[in-house]
């Protein structure tokens, strides 16, 4: 079958998709977007977390056909997504719950492709930078899913308590870090966000 959907702000169509394929498989093997990871493919580890119409989901549990006409944001589009959100809502806080992106703005939004030579995007999102700075990346396999989940947390809660962070990231397994540096990274991103306001 053919599936049309928007990925990181770009309209995409995937052809010859077998009905049983997951969104994760389509992203990784058909779209050349391997950033969403395949650690369990059974919805237990969160390494494949993407945003589907803004909502964080395990893309391994979403059938490819379910995303017809919908919008997906992966870790590859996170920096742009965050930048756009910042432009639309300076200060980044979401106290009123008026977060997210208007349809108009989303339609005008264009993703900037990464520089394939260095892998450097124009700039990293605050949460991506914080993960690097805090030492929250070791093997890095859980990192993309954690980034998508943590970014979504900070979008709806600009100053989360430790319990809030733990709750928001409880669906993302990490085997290397012991999570302490991941907590540090989210705190760091929240603090920098606060300073920027």
């Amino acid at each position, binding site marked *: 079958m053919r599936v049309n959907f928007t990925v990181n702000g770009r309209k995409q169509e995937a052809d010859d998709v077998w009905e049983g394929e997951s969104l994760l498989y389509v992203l990784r093997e058909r779209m050349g977007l391997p950033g969403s990871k395949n650690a369990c*493919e059974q919805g*237990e580890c969160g390494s494949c977390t993407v945003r589907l119409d803004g909502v964080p989901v395990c893309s391994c549990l979403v059938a490819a056909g379910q995303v017809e006409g919908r919008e997906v944001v992966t870790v590859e589009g996170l920096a742009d997504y965050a930048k756009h959100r910042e432009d639309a809502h300076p200060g980044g806080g979401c106290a009123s719950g008026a977060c997210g992106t208007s349809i108009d703005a989303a339609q005008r939004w264009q993703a900037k492709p990464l520089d394939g030579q260095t892998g450097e995007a124009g700039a*990293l999102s605050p949460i991506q930078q914080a993960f690097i700075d805090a030492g929250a990346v070791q093997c890095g396999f859980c990192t993309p899913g954690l980034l998508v989940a943590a970014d979504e947390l900070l979008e709806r809660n600009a100053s989360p308590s430790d319990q809030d962070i733990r709750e928001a990231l409880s669906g993302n397994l990490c085997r290397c870090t012991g999570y302490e540096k991941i907590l540090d990274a989210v705190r760091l991103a929240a603090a920098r966000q606060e300073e920027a306001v």
Partner: protein
Amino acid sequence: MATTGTPTNITQGSKTKGGIGESTLRPDGTLKVTGEFAYSSDMWHEDMLWGQTLRSTVAHAEIKSIDISEAVAMPGVYAVLTYDDLPTEVKNYGLEIQDTPVLAHGKVRHHGEPVALVAADHPETARRAAAKIKIEYAELPVITDEASATAPDAVLVHEGRDDHHIGHVPHPNIVHRQPIVRGDADEAAKRADVIVKGEYTFGMQDQAFLGPESGLAVPSEDGGVELYVATQWLHSDLKQIAPVLGLPEEKVRMTLSGVGGAFGGREDISMQIHACLLALRTGKPVKIVYNRFESFFGHVHRHPAKLYYEHGATKDGKLTHMKCKIVLDGGAYASASPAVVGNASSLSVGPYVIDDVDIEAIALYTNNPPCGAMRGFGAVQACFAYEAQMDKLAAKLGIDPVEFRQLNAMEQGTLLPTGQPVDSPAPVAELLRRVKARPLPPEQQWVTAGEQADVRALPGGLSNTTHGEGVVRGIGYAVGIKNVGFSEGFDDYSTAKVRVEVINGEAVATVHTAMAEVGQGGITVHAQIARTELGVTQVTIHPADTQVGSAGSTSASRQTYVTGGAVKNTCEHVREAVLEIGRRKFGSYHPAWATAELLLEGGKVVTDGGEVLADLADVLEDEAVELELEWRHRPTVAFDLRTGQGNGHVQYSFAAHRAVVEVDTELGLVKVVELSVAQDVGKALNPLSVVGQIQGGTTQGLGVAVMEEIIVDPKTAKVRNPSFTDYLIPTILDTPTIPVDVLELADEHAPYGLRGIGEAPTLSSTPAVLAAIRNATGLELNRTPVRPEHLTGTESS
């Protein structure tokens, strides 16, 4: 960071920014946070096929027949391979004993053993084709424990064994045995005022790295193959792959692709040979990616163990003797079992002084899943048992458990049971003092200003099972000792190629090793070492491959020590060569060129007094200096096979933990509130990475204390929980805050005085949590992991 003790013999604080001792950031960090970093499962090639393994559904059986006809006939299927398709006489592989079939032949010995391979143009086609292969099994009785393995009429897991261990084992179903006898334990026991005996059970833990076994094999024009794979040791894989393919090693070109964690689970071959076989058969690139279910069958696990211990002590708290027997279940194939036996036995006393010991460790062949390397490697199981013993002895003597440990703590100069002296700082008592001195976390953190308890701070969390009723707190301590590096006479070397040249007017260095970066941060440290030694800012880390000499394994806490040592050593030789060029060019301009103590700092040649003699760029001009050198740590010897005596280890590392837990005694739910660590790292080359590593290791120890266990059906030897739904690893909700206290007592034998750090935190974490749960509940708890039924007395037999 606390720094005490003897200063290291290095220039304090490298003058070049980004040198050792600084928390420089990972060079692969940006790629990893943008999703651009290429892990082994991300490989893609034009026209590639997908490989699929068919694994046995039974644990022990004769294979009567295999019918592949339906699978071969499926559209989209390019190849179906069984044992009969193996190209050479070499049909087995193995780390120490070549007893593991590439594909089962005539017999399967454990649940999930590879029997056939399929290559197809879509992973689902490959899965369906594999499901169409018909295998007829005639089941055999399963051997699952020591009694069934060593019974006089026991079926032999491996008939006709002829490996070099066979002469020293009492039964062919025992892989390896290591006794250690020192002093006279029976005589010393007469001096004991109290004797404590215990029998302990350690469950089967899995490494559960997040990046599944995967890789891509691409046939090359010369009949060879290129393999991109996640592994812990490229050259060890190469040695096992090439003979099976019938290719010379230079025709199997291996490149490390991104590794999503390892923890010992990538020391053994998984899909490497299978992918190469399919690629060479089809002439097309073949990618294999295990799903999580298959990953649980795709790698070895941590040995489950039974440990029988006896300790004695005098009234004033001095240990008199220790006797123990450690039985490790190695499963169907040897993997690293012999080395694990050596580790478990030689470290079975723990970080204590006991002169009279009688020790025996064995590993069994059974029809359970194969077990081999996992972080801590035999020392973990022993630590769980001896630390439980320490608490029991202390309780019997009425002495504080920390004080009792400190009374008996090893120090520099103490002899191990093997007779080997610990010839570097051994701050066991100090590490315990530090974790004990740390303030305790506040009580009852679920109490809020309002009426409602914050259930997230309670055992059971948001399942809202208690608001504090029935919840009790407990505190427990543990300390452990782990060896660093490969032991028992193994030639444990590493190789580093370093190049320095001028590019765009700036001197830059390139470091090329075959070291597997598995997340530990070795690549970060290599760049730091090169900056410190060569005084350059720009360091390029060349991808790890087999075009350079072996780096040995990223395991045994050894890689920063051994490959870090190799990089340091090569850099020193490169520096000398650079200075030689400088002397040739500029020697006549300044008398200081003739002195030996010249350094490279900040892109300049300087005297040890800091006087600048020349710019590095001017010295080199268009010359490049490149050297590839091997480097070795101190040699070790094998343990005597009868007495266990011998200087078998390279180095030791020590960590201590304090665990604070809260237990809902009604439901048997445990919440670990805090797990604090103190560890001696010798020298922290990258403090941020050191702390992260210690926290990660601690968390894996927590996992096997309260949740992680591969459950094998004792009747059928089948794995019952091969998924993340049923094999639980700690989430961020299960993991407490982990404060880390780092000591830096230099080991003068090691590069920069460093100690390997990866495994030590995994040792004492588990017994500390167990001690805390015992402290909270008053239960004896002689097995790990502890599950709710063990705490509520509702365990069904």
